[in-house]
């Protein structure tokens, strides 16, 4: 379905104003983009996260749609349970089939780390659900601790940049590929900076005949150390440097959704963020080269997979 800006701007918001996200956070932006893309009624679950605490502080709620939070690692199983109940009640004729879509939201900590097994289980069992990871590359809600999504060299409070060790010492987990390897109908990587692409992917995800996974980069002014107005710009640079390629795997077909005319060097993305500041000291500059090498290696492999090499 073609996405028209005018139409989506006039749609009733599902996540409403009054939430307590930080100024400049990408999460509410990408969440509204995803939910506005979907016309069907939705049921949401949410992992313990910034999103959870910013939108559900009792006795208020920012949600105009059914929403549940259970714990940190189980947003996937929770929504899978709701989806199983829906299927059961519809099959038994106890309720009407109204085409409900089931969506789970989790941060990178909930998705790459603590909740990986739960999501993997849900995907193997084929629940008709879409899991969205808002990847801000660390445990931001608890005060910026490293996750397996945190990139090499980034300063976090548990991978601090010291005088000897320059931030996180490992690269990141190839999570989108891991879920593509589950051979589910739809897996995609997206960015709020290319909203039309993200919204298309959200539509494809909920239309898929089975599980879908969206990994969306979500710049965090507090954790990445950038100005609030820079979030979308940084998401854009992540795409243009090929650090965060936009691609999808639809029924096993890998497709690149955006190929920059000119691939920008990773340094233009790194230098805008305080979490990489220490890398610009002479003794740690080699880490920038290592990051570039990782980005290049992953990009080349992706091009090959997408038949673009």
């Amino acid at each position, binding site marked *: 379905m073609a996405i028209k800006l005018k139409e989506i701007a006039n749609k009733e918001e599902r996540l409403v104003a009054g939430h307590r996200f930080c100024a400049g956070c990408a999460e509410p932006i990408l969440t509204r983009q995803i939910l506005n893309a979907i016309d069907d009624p939705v049921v949401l679950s949410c992992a313990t996260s910034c999103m959870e605490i910013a939108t*559900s502080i*009792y006795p208020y*709620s920012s949600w105009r749609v059914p929403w549940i*939070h*259970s714990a940190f690692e189980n947003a996937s199983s929770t929504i899978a349970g*709701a989806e199983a109940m829906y299927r059961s009640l519809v099959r*038994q004729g*106890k309720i009407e089939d109204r085409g409900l879509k089931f969506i789970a939201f989790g941060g990178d900590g909930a998705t790459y780390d603590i909740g990986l097994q*739960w999501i993997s289980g849900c995907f193997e069992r084929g629940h008709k659900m879409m899991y969205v990871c808002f990847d801000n590359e660390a445990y931001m809600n608890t005060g910026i601790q490293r996750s397996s999504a945190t990139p090499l060299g980034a300063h976090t409070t548990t991978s601090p940049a010291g005088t000897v060790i320059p931030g996180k010492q490992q690269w990141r987990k190839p999570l989108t590929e891991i879920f593509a390897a589950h051979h589910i109908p739809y897996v995609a990587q997206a960015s709020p900076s290319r909203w039309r692409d993200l919204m298309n992917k959200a539509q494809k995800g909920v239309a898929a005949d089975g599980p879908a996974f969206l990994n969306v980069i979500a710049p965090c002014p507090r954790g990445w150390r950038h100005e609030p107005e820079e979030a979308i710009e940084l998401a854009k640079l992540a795409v243009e440097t090929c650090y965060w390629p936009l691609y999808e795997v639809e029924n096993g077909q890998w497709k690149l959704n955006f190929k920059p005319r000119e691939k920008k060097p990773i340094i233009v993305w790194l230098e805008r963020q305080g979490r990489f500041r220490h890398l610009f000291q002479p003794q740690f500059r080699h880490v920038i080269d290592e990051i570039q090498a990782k980005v290049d290696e992953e990009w080349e492999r992706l091009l090959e997979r997408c038949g673009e090499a």
Partner: protein
Amino acid sequence: MPKSKIRALDGAHAVAEAMRQINPDVVAAYPITPQTAIVQTFSNFVADGLVDTEFVAVESEHAAMSTCIGASAAGGRVMTATASAGLALMWEVVYVAASLHLPIVMPVVNRALSAPLNIHCDHSDSMGTRDAGWIQLYSENPQEAYDNVIQAVRIAERLLLPVMVMQDGFITGHGVERVDVLDDGTVKGFIGEYKPEHSLLDVDNPATYGTWDMYDFYFEHKRQQTDALSKALPAIVEVGEEYGELTGRKYGIFEAYGMDDAEMAIVVLSSSAGTARMVVRGLREKGVKIGLFKPRVFRPFPAKEFAEALADVKAVGVLDRSIVFGAMDGLGPGPLYLELCAALFAAGNTTTRVADYVFGLGGRDIIPAYVEQVAQDLAEIAETGEVKTPVSYLGLRE
């Protein structure tokens, strides 16, 4: 009396049979010894189209309870079953289920916790979750496990609280006994239709479940939760009476055997009550004033009722099948003893003396001689009014 059929079933199969008759909308479960017979048998029912249930064969017990939470919030009947490490693994979300007031029913086949690894019966698993906000019912034999599971559905949905139904691993779970199985229509009629007040699937009236709750409201919410549990006993009794009228098997909050003029009492949960009953019967024949007191409900703990029932008893021997590590200077009493002492103390009882006997850990057999030994101790305690050893261990090599 409704139609029923006498069958030879072990406790696990009896519970699976109850689950078939309950026909839950969703069952999410993970296999663990000695609960496996429940999920396997239920899987067969699903495979043969005997239930309408959406069966979710999850990848862990934490996922089982997480799936049950989502499913129950979505407004249908939900069950799972577990044991031991499985219950321990789901501990976090066992709390979530109760705190969200989700009427999930969970049979538990009691088994010891690691380490060392042991697959046999004790009550460490369910006792580990005794403070999680669930109603806990303990069953002596396959018949009680079957009856309790059916009643649990009514209790849970009436109180909007989840219910655990315990039976002893292997002893009851794998022990084949005579079970009076009701006909399907009778069970269906007894449990009725479940009509949830709220549902996550109600997109026309969207609700937010499981909010972020700070110091300005959290405390009140926890208070409301204890309040809900404090109102549970009358409902449990009412359902038990109604079940009794229907089946001839009436259930209350405890069973008293030979307690009318008893000066001594043995208090024990689940299958070991059978052994204790036999010993008590023998002693009664010899004129010893001893009785058996078998709690059925452990949560909420019926403190007033228990204190009242034991008010005139001089000496009580509690048989505990788990240890509260570190309690009472590290003597290692069990939770039943601690709760019962607190109940007697709160009731102002200064005359009833209580001694605790930890037994049967990791499936160690309890034999009549051990219970006779307890009875001998109690006779001395009743006479002297003195408890020389507050916590002892039965059948332990030392």
